[in-house]
């Protein structure tokens, strides 16, 4: 399986805002025909909205063959904030369907959607592979037992660096990104929870127990580092290009992107910082008022078959939340089998101990932190 050019999961072309609005309009139209439960009739075609380049290219056709359900797979999920603004608020916020049967927001956005009652319960009876969810993702405080979501892919935000540009020096800690020798050659990711969480770790604070005070202290450090030119810029997946061209000597980066980059640039390193790293995941949910919950459940079940999940892992090279994927990769042989031994895709217990989820603060506080973070990132 050939690794795909990524951007997996986290950002994408900004042109799609307009397309998004068009999709929303289509969604509103789709709401016109309703069944006896007040839900729109299922059009017969499953509509999946995911981030770009975040799937094995054959998965959709293989699902169609296996189930006979045609799929409209849309790779226009460009960011959680944008999705709320242009899709979820105008549709779900007004009691209307989104027009999609599966969407894949990041975990904190799923928590926010659940809080607002914008997510349907997964029809468990159609998803026997629900049993393959890695236990670590069953205990989210906002959905214990994963009754409303099924993780799609998991990533680690750690450090990537180019040894040629750091003078051969190995970068092991986030603190080193703030050293004068790297001034103007450092990049950070534009996801507030990850960058702030990693900086919190340098200050001895635990992102999984984040408070407003500890987050603000991290923001102060970022603000000052940006102001004095230590941080060159904040990016989404553009750090891949910046590392390749030499704009960044070191940066915060997403694990899957770097593993893929290493196919062509084996000199680029990815490390889990000594202070720890941030773990995140994007999760499949069925939006409220979707008429295709049964087909959506079939899709989730298909994605959670270890063999199918292994194909996706081999393509996107993020951590799979599906039990049995490692064994399936090993059985596949070749490049896939080598992935089964990749410590970033399958972190050992020692590494796992250093991975933190960002703790959910209340929405108002997170919005305020996000606003301040956006002012810093520009």
């Amino acid at each position: 399986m050939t690794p795909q050019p990524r951007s997996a999961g986290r950002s994408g072309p900004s042109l799609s805002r307009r397309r998004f609005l068009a999709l929303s309009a289509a969604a509103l139209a789709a709401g016109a025909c309703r069944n006896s439960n007040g839900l729109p009739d299922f059009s017969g075609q499953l509509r999946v909205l995911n981030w770009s380049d975040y799937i094995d290219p054959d998965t959709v056709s293989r699902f169609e063959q296996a189930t006979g359900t045609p799929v409209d797979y849309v790779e226009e999920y460009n960011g959680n904030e944008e999705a709320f603004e242009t899709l979820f608020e105008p549709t779900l916020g007004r009691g209307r369907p989104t027009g999609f049967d599966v969407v894949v927001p990041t975990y904190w956005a799923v928590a926010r959607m659940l809080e607002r009652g914008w997510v349907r319960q997964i029809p468990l009876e159609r998803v026997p592979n629900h049993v393959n969810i890695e236990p670590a993702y069953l205990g989210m405080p906002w959905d214990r037992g994963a009754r409303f979501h099924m993780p799609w892919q998991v990533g680690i935000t750690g450090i990537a660096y180019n040894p040629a540009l750091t003078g051969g020096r190995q970068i092991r800690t986030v603190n080193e990104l703030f050293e004068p020798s790297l001034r103007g050659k450092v990049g950070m990711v534009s996801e507030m929870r990850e960058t702030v969480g990693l900086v919190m770790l340098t200050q001895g604070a635990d992102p999984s127990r984040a408070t407003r005070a500890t987050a603000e202290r991290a923001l102060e450090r970022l603000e000052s580092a940006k102001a004095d030119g230590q941080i060159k810029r904040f990016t989404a997946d553009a750090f891949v290009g910046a590392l390749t061209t030499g704009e960044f000597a070191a940066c915060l980066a997403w694990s899957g992107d770097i593993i893929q980059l290493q196919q062509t640039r084996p000199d680029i390193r990815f490390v889990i910082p000594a202070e720890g790293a941030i773990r995140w995941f994007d999760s499949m949910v069925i939006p409220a008022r979707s008429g295709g919950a049964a087909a959506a459940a079939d899709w989730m079940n298909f994605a959670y078959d270890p063999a199918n999940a292994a194909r996706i892992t081999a393509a996107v090279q993020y951590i799979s939340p599906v039990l049995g994927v490692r064994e399936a990769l090993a059985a596949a042989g070749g490049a896939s089998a080598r992935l089964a031994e990749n410590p970033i895709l399958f972190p050992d217990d020692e590494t796992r101990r250093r991975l933190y989820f960002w703790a959910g603060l209340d929405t108002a506080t997170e919005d305020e932190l996000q606003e301040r973070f956006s002012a810093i990132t520009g």
Partner: protein
Amino acid sequence: MSVLTRGIRDAAATTPGRYRLWSVVTAVLLLATAVAGWAAATALRSGTDRIRNNAGPVLVATQQLVSSLAEADAAATAAFLSGRPEDPESRRLYEQALARAGAQIEDVSALIGNDPVTHDSLKDLSVAVTRYAGLVEAARATNQASVPGAERYLVDALNLLATTVADDATRLTDATQRRFERDEDRRDTGVLPAVVVAAVALAVLLAAQLWVFRQSRRLVNIPMALATLLLVGGIGWLVAATFRSGTDIERARADGYDSISLTSRIQTTAYRSKADETVALITSDQSRRTRAAETARSVLADRATPAVVDAVRAGREPGLPGLLTDAAGVADSDRERAAVAEMLERWQRYQDTSAQLRTITDAAQVRAVAVGPAAATFNGFNFSVESVLSDNRDQFLEGLASSADRLGYLTLIALLVPLAAAVGALGGLQLRINEYP
């Protein structure tokens, strides 16, 4: 002879007077019906609301408390066994679970009002949980400082949770269950007297119409007929609402709460097995290991093979005794059966890692498996149980809400319908009186 008797006798001497007597008797009985109906509906409504807002949530919160404590302990054990440095994920899970247990104790305390028996049970439980948390912290501190004897604190904590706290939780559950039953029994005690009074009023109303018919030779007195229909409708409404809201509560109890109790038993029993397994691991006490295996067999007597899982999913008899298959037996939808099937599979995974643990002799490896796969598979099982618990809780609380919703306008109807019937009856009789000069 009293003034009243004389007055009645004088009134009964003339036909208009006899009409007036009928008017008075009918009006008094319909007013009594309004009062009795309003009182019965109010009691029914407040009793149902008490079950919905108080007894029901207390029962659910108590079961969730047990679940949180089991999770806290599994995490505390994993954190302890991880040694130095401590596994932050396990520690975080422990703190979250303990914080949730604390919040649930507060919830229960706020909901139980001034019931001294329940308060006593809750107080005992709260003290035991505080002691438990203290022991876990002592175990943690001594473990991190590599002071000998840290295991002793953890074993004491495990024993405390598996015995004292579990017993306190059971007492609390029993007490709240009794409260639930008491509220359920008392809820409709006023309905029968109200129906009897209404039936008497109806009989008098019918008798009055028969008498009017004989006097006037007119078959139907429309206002009185409407009053009769109204009263019959009102009685029917009261009886139907009482019956249907009672049925909703019964269904909520059977589909929701009985399943909650069973699921909670599964969780507590599985947890006891794990606690014994952990103590055996720490102290090499083989009797605890034997007990762990026996307790595990009461969760499921043998392996959850794919055939057993498929049978549960398909609603067939799995042919294997145990609490998990009992849960499959009470599952009444495909979704519930699927959830039980998942519990079975995750339980088997935990059992497999436990069996693997028993075969390992190297202490470091034992700890690695205990902290890694064994803790993960137990957490997976525990979360799947909690998922079922959440489904049952939703079903239970929805049933109670539906019961309360059925009584939406009952108080108003119970009051206004007899009053409207009284107006109709008096109007009908007055029409006849007006025919006399």
